[in-house]
């Protein structure tokens, strides 16, 4: 059974205890809210997700979207839920007030997105893509385009899409063929085929605004010749009233593994009218400004999937009676004990719990940096926040989505056969979570971004935004008696990370394969240490709050943290050994040996 209650207590802990600082208050103040407003906002969002989105999660997965003659019908309940979602104003949560949004802090938006992803990941894609489109237009487009499109996008009356991929290119966008020809009136005619367009066509909104990457006649080769265009499904007049239909269509939707309630469309543009967003040939730049935010939000999806997997698995582990506890019977008047008594089940649950809560803290901290960067006047403080965000984006996108997959898979394991069959809705979690390591730049690409771009950037300055902070923290707390089960393992794993960082940097100078090879292992190691740092801070806070803890919330944080530090963090050791053994074992492996076991 899919079980989900928004982790509101954890959010409140993060806001009040973990993020708590004068900066957080300033950011809230800047958005015209205080802590208690924030609680109310999260409470209402939670209610909406639990009551409106979760109940249609399973049915919408089995129904899927229906394609008929260029139109896409969304599953039962989606039209009502979407109407409810936009009427309650959630689409505009982080949009500027002048475009009809509420301009709330980014980290609050992250909490909202996590709840939506847990309750119904497919549903979340519709407003999620709109947010991406808003972001791209807000940061790159002319005022005319902003004024025309942003008000209706931020109310959710119109939805948005991102059109990058074409049949011959996904990761390597330099190969795109879609062409935009300039017209005398300043508009363009767009022609080409785009695939994998999430929510490219559907029945939730009156208009769909496509952002399309295309080349222009005689534009430079490769990604330097790409520009971004806004191409509406129905062309609005200057006041935003809907006019004629544009010359574009959805020709089919994909059959796929998961997120079945969101359509993945093939889009044909046949001399469709479009307008340039930002500067000519600067489409990739515009796209990347948007993409960094989108990557963090995909990380949030991973987190959301991990949370619902955990809650669903925990529910079952308490309900399901099988076998007896090995040491002593826990449930004498029942035929068996709940499976929660078994060590293997407990370990799996604790693994998901500690990774999820740790990632949530790292995510919220990074979200806070986005807010700080927006308002900070001090150049160096702003730079520190920007460096932290740039460094953590590939880490959070990759690691969080990996954890989403692992958590859902472990949830199936805890349900056993009942997880593998469809009735309980647990296998759906595996299928839905599996897209997140793939889209918005595969996790392999994220690891290359970390090792190849972020690591050497500004001669290692980005790394310092993390390394210096942790180093100082360790020095400050080295004699903190309370943290005796936290500081030593953190220091040890941090030392490993420093050592491996220099190892990869040095090796990579001579041979790029030596840096690319261990990239995903390195990213994982980095993630584990960063989360260890988060858990150590949780523990520090929780020891100080120990006296005001009637529900045992802080005690639970300390005990969970101990589990993480002693059972999960040591994995950095095996990752280190593997990385130190070098990349030659796969790079120099003869291609012909790959098929040595069978005849082709």
């Amino acid at each position, binding site marked *: 059974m899919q079980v989900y209650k928004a982790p509101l207590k954890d959010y409140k802990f993060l806001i009040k205890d973990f993020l708590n600082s004068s900066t957080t208050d300033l950011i809230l103040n800047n958005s015209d809210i205080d802590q208690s407003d924030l609680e109310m906002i999260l409470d*209402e969002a939670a209610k*909406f997700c639990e009551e409106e989105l979760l109940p249609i999660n399973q049915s919408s997965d089995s129904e899927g979207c229906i394609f008929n003659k260029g139109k896409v019908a969304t599953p039962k309940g989606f039209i009502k839920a979407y109407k409810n979602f936009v009427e*309650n*104003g959630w689409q505009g949560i982080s949009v500027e007030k002048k475009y009809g949004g509420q301009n709330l802090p980014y980290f609050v938006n992250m909490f909202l997105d996590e709840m939506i992803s847990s309750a119904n990941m497919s549903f979340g894609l519709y407003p999620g893509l709109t947010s991406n489109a808003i972001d791209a237009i807000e940061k790159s487009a002319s005022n005319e385009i902003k004024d025309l499109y942003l008000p209706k996008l931020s109310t959710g009356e119109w939805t948005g899409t991102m059109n990058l991929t074409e049949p011959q290119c996904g990761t390597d966008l330099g190969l795109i063929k879609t062409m935009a020809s300039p017209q005398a009136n300043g508009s363009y005619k767009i022609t080409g085929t785009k695939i994998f367009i999430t929510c490219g066509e559907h029945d939730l909104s009156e208009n769909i605004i496509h952002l399309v990457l295309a080349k222009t006649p005689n534009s430079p080769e490769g990604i330097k010749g790409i520009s971004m265009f806004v191409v509406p499904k129905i062309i609005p007049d200057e006041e935003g009233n809907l006019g004629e239909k544009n010359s574009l269509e959805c020709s089919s939707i994909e059959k796929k593994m998961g997120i079945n309630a969101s359509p993945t469309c093939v889009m044909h543009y046949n001399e469709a009218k479009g307008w340039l967003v930002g500067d000519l040939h600067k489409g990739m730049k515009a796209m990347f400004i948007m993409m960094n935010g989108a990557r963090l939000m995909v990380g949030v999806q991973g987190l959301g999937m991990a949370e619902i997997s955990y809650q669903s698995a925990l529910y079952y582990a308490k309900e399901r009676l099988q076998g007896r506890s090995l040491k002593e019977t826990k449930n004498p008047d029942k035929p068996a004990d709940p499976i929660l008594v078994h060590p293997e089940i407990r370990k799996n649950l604790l693994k998901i719990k500690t990774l999820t809560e740790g990632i949530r803290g790292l995510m919220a901290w990074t979200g806070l940096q986005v807010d700080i960067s927006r308002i900070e006047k001090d150049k160096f403080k702003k730079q520190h926040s920007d460096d932290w965000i740039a460094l953590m984006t590939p880490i959070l996108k990759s690691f969080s989505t990996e954890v989403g997959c692992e958590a859902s898979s472990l949830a199936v394991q805890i349900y056993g056969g009942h997880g593998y069959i469809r009735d309980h809705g647990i296998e759906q979690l595996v299928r839905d979570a599996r897209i997140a390591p793939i889209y918005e730049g595969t996790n392999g690409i994220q690891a290359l971004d970390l090792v190849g771009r972020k690591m050497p950037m500004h001669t290692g300055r980005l790394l310092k935004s993390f390394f210096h902070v942790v180093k100082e923290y360790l020095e400050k707390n080295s004699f903190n008696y309370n943290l005796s089960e936290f500081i030593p393992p953190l220091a040890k794993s941090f030392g490993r990370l420093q050592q491996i960082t220099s190892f990869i940097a040095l090796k990579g100078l001579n041979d790029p394969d030596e840096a690319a090879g261990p990239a995903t292992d390195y990213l994982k190691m980095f993630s584990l240490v960063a989360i260890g740092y988060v858990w150590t801070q949780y523990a520090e806070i929780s020891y100080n709050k120990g006296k005001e803890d009637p529900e045992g919330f802080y005690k639970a944080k300390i005990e969970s943290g101990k589990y993480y530090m002693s059972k999960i963090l040591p994995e950095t050791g095996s990752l280190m050994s593997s990385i130190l053994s070098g990349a030659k074992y796969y790079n120099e492996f003869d291609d012909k040996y790959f098929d040595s076991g069978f005849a082709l």
Partner: protein
Amino acid sequence: MKILVTVKRVIDYNVQIRVKSDGSGVETENVKMSMNPPDENAVEEALRIKETGKADEVIVISVGGEKSQETIRTALAMGADRGILIKADSNLEPLAVAKVLQKIIEKENPKMVLLGKQAIDDDCNQTGQMLSALLGWEQGAFVSKIEVDGNSVSITREIDEGLEMLKLSLPVIVTCDLRLNEPRYASLPNIMKAKKKPIDLLNVEDLGVDTSPRIKQIKVEEPPKREKGIMVKDVAELVQKLKHEAKVI
């Protein structure tokens, strides 16, 4: 027309109730609290009446502790115009609450007062009826449909025999059933607006109302745990046990 709506802060309907170990009451510390569910229906209905243009102000009132402000805030975020909190430390009995409300009503002069039919904490189901008697206003209790037409209000009541349709004249007291409507969510823009809406704070002592309890609560305890079943040999043994041990026949 002004509409006054009463709201009560109660333990959330999802929470498993725990009795305090000393038997003095129910545990409310660190327990999730929210608006009494039928009160949500009352707020919703008032807002709908206002949206049809038949009312111009919706005032929300609560009698309770400082934290009842949060409950009023929720109603304001749903769309109510302003709030009044009558601060009272102890749990007042329905008669006392009705008397407090009477005082406020005499001052505010609403033409319609909407209440939840009962609160899910004590299940008293008395305040609305008592208030009607104190004011001498017409009343409709357990209402699942309201239509305002000039000076009269047509209501449908959920009663044991089925549905009862009545026509009342303003001013009226109406207590709302869960079937009346589906309460809306507080929208994000309305939550943002709610913080700027005023809430008047008054102390119950300052109203000059006798709120002294008429009932003495002796002890609160949990219902006895269900005991394990046993197998009986035959009908004779069953009858014997029902007679002598269970003492039910």
